[in-house]
């Protein structure tokens, strides 16, 4: 990409102390989010996607230890003084969460939840913020915005709540929007509307988007690049088309094969690869996929793979990558531009 990426994650580690030991939720992940582009982050539940997003937003509990760098426009969010970071969250980076039913305050009217960011961060006047709120609600497709402003969250449907959450995230015109499983809690029919809405506002506003999902179909066709996470590590990253058409990491390959068809109507679970994620407190040495991989040899464990260029804008961390063009059987996502 030409311009400098809006967000650069460098060797990010997020280790969370628990009663059962230190959970190595994110372990040495490096990733770029390009300007005005959409990046998908996929991987099965527990692979560390949410922890990574929370590390960027400073939302991890105090017992979590983060190291590495999260560079936003060149400034490291992990080491920035609190005052300066406060200028970034909400204003320049915003987030949409999984469950809109739980991420809106049940006892606060929509109007205040929607306008408090503008009022407190941008110093917008009350009436101006109200006008902006009405515009935002129309932009995200909430009918009758006047009335909605006076509503409490429980008076809205799940899909409407998520639209409101997106409006809230857009309120201060962020450069980057992180959406963590934004549709997982919603009905299938609503899911698609919300995903298309996200992609539309991302394009209209020239904003960057990180779309996190355990579901490949969510990301396919709606993102420019995709990163595949496995057990706290990055397995593969590249142009979405390239990764889906020709996955090089054994995990991505297995994942695509296990996914029935990359069809927007389906909500395909990713739990179809035999076996399960390694113990996050005690991951195996080298590649973390070894226990479930069919092509394991000694060098997968020691020294283990490192991220390498495997094609144009396509990287994979695999000792024995799948041959280029070895298309997993039922591919649907990469073939159509949609």
């Amino acid at each position: 990409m030409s311009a400098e990426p809006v967000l650069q994650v460098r060797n990010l580690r997020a280790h969370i102390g628990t009663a059962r030991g230190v959970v190595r939720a994110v372990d040495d992940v490096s990733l770029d989010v390009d300007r005005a582009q959409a990046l998908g982050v996929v991987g099965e539940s527990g692979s560390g996607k949410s922890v990574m997003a929370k590390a960027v937003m400073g939302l991890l509990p105090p017992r979590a230890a983060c190291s590495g760098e999260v560079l936003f426009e060149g400034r490291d969010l992990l080491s920035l003084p609190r005052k300066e970071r406060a200028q970034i969250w909400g204003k320049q980076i915003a987030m949409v969460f999984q469950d809109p039913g739980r991420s809106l305050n049940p006892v606060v009217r929509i109007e205040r939840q929607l306008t408090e960011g503008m009022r407190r961060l941008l110093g917008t006047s009350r009436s101006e913020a109200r006008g902006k709120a009405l515009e935002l609600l129309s932009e995200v497709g909430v009918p009758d915005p006047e009335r909605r402003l006076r509503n409490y969250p429980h008076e809205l449907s799940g899909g409407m709540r998520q639209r409101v959450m997106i409006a809230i995230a857009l309120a201060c015109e962020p450069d980057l929007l992180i959406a963590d499983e934004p549709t997982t809690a919603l009905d299938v029919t609503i899911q698609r509307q919300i995903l298309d809405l996200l992609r539309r506002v991302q394009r209209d506003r020239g904003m960057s988007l990180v779309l996190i999902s355990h579901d490949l179909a969510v990301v396919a066709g709606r993102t420019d690049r995709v990163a595949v996470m496995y057990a706290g590590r990055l397995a593969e990253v590249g142009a979405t088309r390239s990764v889906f058409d020709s996955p090089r990491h054994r995990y991505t390959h297995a994942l695509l094969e296990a996914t029935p068809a990359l069809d927007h109507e389906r909500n395909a679970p990713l739990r179809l690869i035999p076996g399960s994620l390694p113990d996050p407190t005690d991951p195996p040495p080298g590649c973390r996929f070894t226990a479930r991989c069919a092509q394991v040899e000694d060098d997968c464990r020691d020294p283990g793979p490192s991220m390498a260029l495997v094609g144009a804008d396509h990287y994979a961390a695999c000792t024995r990558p799948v041959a280029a063009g070895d298309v997993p059987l039922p591919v649907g996502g990469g073939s159509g531009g949609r």
Partner: protein
Amino acid sequence: MVLPVLSRIGRSLLVVLLVTMAVVLLMSLAPGSAAEVILGEAATPEAVAALNAKLGLDQPLWAQYLNWLGDAVRGDLGESPVTGQPVTEAIVERLPVTLQLAVMALLLALVVSVLLAVASAVRPNSLVDRAINAVSSVFLSVPAFIAGPLLIYVFALQLGWFPVTGWSRLSDGIGPNLLGALLPAIAIALTEIAAFHRVLRADLIGTLREDFVGAARAKGMSGAYVMLRHALRPSSFSLVTLAGINLGRLIGGTVIVESLFALPGLGQLLATSIVTRDVVTVQGVVAFIAVVYVGVNTAVDLSYRLIDPRIRKVATA
């Protein structure tokens, strides 16, 4: 909205009726008639019978109750056979003292406990939190009859900041009045502070784990703003309930502290009438306390609607 409110008030009235019935019944169960008690051992049977008839105690229980109730709803709680003062007048005379004490103690406890709970919940199990918890445990386990004398000793006798005992009326100037009420209010508030702190701390910690708190922080809202504008209100149910129950309780029963500090309140009135076997006054005061208690609790129940809009919704649905 209207129907559930009415039914709540209806239930409250029922409770008041039952309590007053129980009071009439209990008094008739006590050994000896009220007249015997009032007139003393030396009284002639004729005199006793005459007084019983005057007090209406020769009638069947239900008639006694109905008579009493009929007068009570008109604000007439009878006349003390001991002092000759109408009971209603005695209550009205002493109510301001107790009310002021209860309200001051409660406000003090609320302000202090909210501050402490917020300080605790910001970082649970931190040094600050553990120190506050330790202090609050001490408050909780020290009853007013120990805290009271201790406060009197330190702040009134040694430091001389407050009068030792006694009450100066509000009409004699607000300064001396507040000064006189503060120490007893603190004596009452200590336990309340501890109880309120526990409840609110636990609820706040729970709320701060909610997704909407993370979402508010992700919006760039400061920690203090999130605490005050997002977390405090949804965490305040148990606190409001407890504070309401305790306000009712305090109005009926600051007996110990009123005695310790020699304050002319309702508790003192009740205590003296029990000692002098003043049946009529005891009945009247207990009935009054029951009405206040039930009234406050009803108001608390209805106030949930103000805290949480979802309850309004359910109630109207």
